[in-house]
């Protein structure tokens, strides 16, 4: 995996925390947008841990830059940010990140999240689940335009998984609660993220705009 963060101290902290984790090795790290794109394209990591706030366009610019250079062969991005503001989370997910976790996450959870995105699953922080729920339910007090038919495309099960995620449950706990396998929980989460990235881009943008954060 590859570390992108403009704070060297934070990078070394993540390095140290992940040092003892099995199956994880750090392919490199970078502190600026341009440097990150170069090194990621050169080293072809499986997973990129991506900081959201960086000078020169931030994590979204890195995502776009790497995608432009590598096309379909792009590594998986997991956003790791101190910011849990709606606009950061939504912009990063829309740009194609496979998950979003905040920097207060502990080492074991982070390692778990990295493995999960590497396997092709989505990783949600409770915060991200909350934002997605908010946008899909459309029940907020802010009046919204008529919802797309696509908006109802979240299945009941996916909603349940999301709600438990938002309540701070781990994937394992959700599996126990709903009597399904962890793999199924991961599939639901991945589907939600896919729908969020693709079919509901417009709805999310509108949702963000109605809250003056777009």
């Amino acid at each position, binding site marked *: 995996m590859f570390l992108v963060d403009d704070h060297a101290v934070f990078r070394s902290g993540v390095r140290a925390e992940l040092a003892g984790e099995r199956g994880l090795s750090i392919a490199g790290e970078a502190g600026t947008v341009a440097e990150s794109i170069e090194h990621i394209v050169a080293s072809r990591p499986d997973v990129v841990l991506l900081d959201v706030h960086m000078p020169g366009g931030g994590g979204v610019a890195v995502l776009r830059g790497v995608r432009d250079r590598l096309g379909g062969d792009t590594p998986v991005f997991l956003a790791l940010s101190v910011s849990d503001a709606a606009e950061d989370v939504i912009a990063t997910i829309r740009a194609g990140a496979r998950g979003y976790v905040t920097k207060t996450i502990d080492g074991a959870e982070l390692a778990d999240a990295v493995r999960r995105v590497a396997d092709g699953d989505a990783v949600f922080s409770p*915060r991200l*689940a909350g934002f997605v729920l908010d946008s899909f339910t459309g*029940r907020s*007090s802010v009046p919204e335009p008529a919802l797309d038919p696509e908006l109802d495309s979240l299945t009941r099960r996916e909603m349940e998984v999301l709600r438990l995620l938002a*309540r*701070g449950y781990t994937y394992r706990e959700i599996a126990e609660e709903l009597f399904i396998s962890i793999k199924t929980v991961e599939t639901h989460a991945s589907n939600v993220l896919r729908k969020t990235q693709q079919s509901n881009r417009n709805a999310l943008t509108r949702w963000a705009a109605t809250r003056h954060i777009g």
Partner: protein
Amino acid sequence: MPAGRPSPDGPSRLVRRNAGRVIGGVAGGLADHLGVDVFRVRVVFVLLGALAGAGVAAYVLLWFLCPLGEDTERASAAERRQAYGLALVGSVVSILLGIAAAGTPLANLLPFLVVLVGAGVVWREFDAPATGRGTWRTWARLAGGAAAVVGGLAVVVLLGDPDVGRLSTTLLAVGVTLAGVVMLTVPLWMRMWRALGDERAARIRDAEREEIASHLHDSVLQTLALIQKKAAKPDEVVRLARSQERELRGWLFGDPAQHGGSLAATLTGVCGEVEDDYGIEVDVITVGDLSPDDEPHAERRRRWAGLASATREALINAAKHSGERKVSVYCEITDEQVEVFVRDRGVGFDPATVGEDRQGIVRSVRGRMDRFGGSVTIDSAPGRGTNVVLRMPRAHEDDPHGRNMPGDDAVASHTGRQEDGQ
């Protein structure tokens, strides 16, 4: 920041070439901006110039409006010759076309050309950096340019309308001179205007910086100083750091739920208070929201205050007894009801064999919810943490709890404020 430097993010501004300019630097600047060959841009200007002088007008306007760039490479002699040649060709072509198409005699067009060349010479001098030039040359150029402009204008006026010749010569001289002065000083006005804009931008930046500095001083620096003093008390340090983080987060990311009187804001506020008072970490997620405008009846608003204080009790319960330092709060506001989940992964307990002290707290949560028509579900098992679910139905017309109820006034005041921005 000097005008014309491309800002670090966002599209770069169109600037004229400075050292690399031949006449006004417009074509060069445009070529750099568009990423095309400068020769093509010049040819386009010449061709447009042939269209009743459109190219000339565009060139002059761009000269006015674009600030000078900061390039340092001088144009090569060949490029200069080429550019001057193109300018000459352009002038000749537009004059010829003017004669051929509009039937204007050459004598009428020439003065215009003289005015343009004169203005060009003068504007170039204004553009040039103040140093590194012989002053007598500068003055000679300025004087020559001014003479050309005024002379050309005078001829234009005299030729244009024979009747004008009968006007008072003094009046005419004054008019022509005024027009000439205006034309000649355009670059000066533009420069002053731009300087004014720069100054205003700088002032705004300074004010912003000052505001940020004073905010950081009042918050982060003060907290860091306190943390240094209390380094021996880890609990206190964690508490300070958490509350500072929350405050700074609200300030930086402007979470709308952090201010205003909405239900989500009230709950977030309650969680923050418990976080501070008990030194625990509370993760709050809210879905949907309810502003005071949605609940016009003060009596009904009090039920949300009741819900907030029940949430507080549940949180305090978790802080005191769970042994866990991290509690999740999830609040979902729907059209039918409001649900609040307070969850910890602490020691938990068996609800059947609950101690007298804990029963008291459970009762205080339940009591508050009951009073406002809500319900409480407590789900816990030893070693598996505790999950408290508070449910409060949204008010309906036939609701018996909409009337005179005892409430928690301290928290009720939270919901009385207007939510801003919505």
